[in-house]
């Protein structure tokens, strides 16, 4: 309903936006192409802040960046997947035994407030760096995921669960074929937020030598080479945005019913 009260020209205006964006992008691409073709290792003499030749004139760079990105991706996906698994169990326990929900939320909330550097620092004293990073990153996903799973299931209209019961669905079947599908958008939103947050946190895990895009930032700083820092940060943002979009796509594909609405 509120959309009905928006500016009537929003749509056409947005179209202009896209057009302007496309023109700007094309202009930038053209400019960049010219710039890149003129790049030369001799520009190093001028010592600019960003050395584009590192990115565009050095064939090895791309595969190195690709390696860093996949390392980063791995350190993002593994904790989120683990977190989802653990959160599902915690949420299931919390939903079954309501009185446990508060302690579960408090615990995951407490984990969430521990500074990541501190958590990495403590955990590496107990286990390998990789495990420490995964444990720390997983623990950060719990709050978001548990909260969203519970909210998602709780958000299923009582009329729908009542109908499911009334039609003779068992508890398990109700959960699998009614409640989970309906909670999916909220759960996936949680996964999305957790993933984007984790992408950022993985950058910090580079202090314990795990590679990833964060290592570009640290290496860049340690050798006073801002190019690498900018590229590391840029790829990190791109990775977060890409994962966000992929998860949005998953959400749309799995919840076709949520898209079509009667024009009220």
């Amino acid at each position: 309903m509120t959309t009905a009260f928006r500016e009537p020209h929003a749509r056409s205006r947005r179209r202009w936006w896209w057009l302007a964006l496309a023109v700007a992008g094309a202009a930038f691409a053209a400019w960049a192409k010219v710039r890149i073709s003129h790049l030369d290792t001799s520009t190093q003499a001028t010592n600019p802040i960003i050395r584009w030749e590192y990115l565009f004139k050095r064939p090895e760079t791309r595969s190195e960046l690709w390696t860093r990105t996949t390392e980063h991706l791995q350190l993002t996906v593994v904790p989120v997947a683990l977190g989802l698994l653990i959160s599902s169990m915690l949420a299931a326990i919390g939903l079954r035994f309501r009185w446990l929900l508060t302690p579960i939320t408090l615990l995951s909330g407490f984990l969430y407030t521990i500074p990541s550097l501190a958590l990495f620092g403590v955990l590496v004293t107990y286990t390998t760096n990789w495990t420490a990073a995964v444990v720390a990153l997983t623990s950060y996903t719990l709050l978001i995921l548990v909260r969203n799973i519970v909210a998602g299931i709780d958000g299923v209209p009582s009329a729908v669960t009542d109908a499911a019961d009334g039609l003779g669905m068992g508890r398990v079947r109700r959960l699998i074929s009614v409640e989970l599908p309906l909670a999916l958008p909220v759960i996936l939103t949680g996964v999305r937020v957790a993933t984007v947050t984790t992408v950022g946190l993985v950058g910090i895990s580079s202090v314990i030598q795990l590679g990833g895009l964060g290592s570009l930032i640290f290496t860049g700083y340690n050798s006073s080479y801002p190019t690498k820092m900018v590229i590391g940060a840029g790829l990190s943002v791109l990775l977060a945005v890409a994962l966000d979009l992929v998860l949005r796509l998953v959400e749309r594909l799995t919840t076709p019913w949520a898209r079509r609405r009667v024009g009220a």
Partner: protein
Amino acid sequence: MSAEVAISLSGVTKRYAGAATVAVEPLDLDVERGHVVVLIGPSGCGKTTTLRMINRLIEPTAGTITIDGTDIRDRPVTELRRGIGYVIQQVGLFPHRTIAQNIATVPTLLGWDKRKVRDRVDELADLVGLDPELLRRYPSELSGGQQQRVGVARALAADPPVLLMDEPFGAVDPIVRARLQAELLALQARVHKTIVLVTHDIDEAIALGDRVAVLNVGGVLEQYAAPDDLLAAPVNDFVGQFLGHERSIKRLSLARVANLALDGGLVADVEAGIDAARAVLAKGHGAWLGLIEGGRFAGWVPVDEVEAAGSIAELEPEPAAAVVRADSTLREALEVILTSRSSTAVVVDEHGTFGGTVTLEAIREGLTR
């Protein structure tokens, strides 16, 4: 009508742990097969609780409920529920499933094969008057009235003998509600289910119920009777108050013209001749005489013209301004009489054959019967 009992509640009690009051006092209620029984009462009277105890969404604290003589506790709960249609106010359609999938819920649970399920869905769409085009859509794309039809179709999917409806039309606007009520009656005339329906709308109860159970707070059954009996003779002040001040007006919409003791009134057959007509006039008094020609009502003529006329052929009857059908409600008859200049309405059947006349007096007598 058969008096066979389909659902029987005996001594059914619901007491919630920690609650000071009893939700449902020991309640005895029999529902006859093929009847629509309406549970009505103020908030907190336990009508919904009672309904939900029948499909065990709520377990009674004490007492037994039987369906077709079998205790409902003797069957696995999911199996029991699959055999009972269930319709609720918010409809509770599964938003993530298409209309067809929603309707197919119970048949799928029962493991019907796909072809049979599809046929059944089409059949039900037709039965509840749902455009087949809508079957592929999602619930959010349907209007409230359409959703409620889907709810009914879903409840009827596996052809359960019993249907439980909890304020099924409570969430739709009055115009749609009236149409859905009419549709439900028409549907019931075809499927003859045993229906238990909860409502807080006395007009709905009167319109839909074969029998109405009026419940007081705590699930106390105050009266259990056919709507007309209820309106005619409420057993106590509670029921009387609940039915409201306009009981007679309500009965008007319940009773039909055909139920009245119709008298012929001042009517004469054209064939019988002018003398017979004058004889009719001698028996009663009024300002107009009705003329019948070939079984049909020809019109009214003023009495003085009849007296003055040499033959019936001379008379020029004025067409009737107030005509009602035998199956019209008294309310409709009253409306017709009040809005026409005539104080008498002519009753005809669907073929237009004359059936008698109705006067205000006749309606009044009908209500005080």
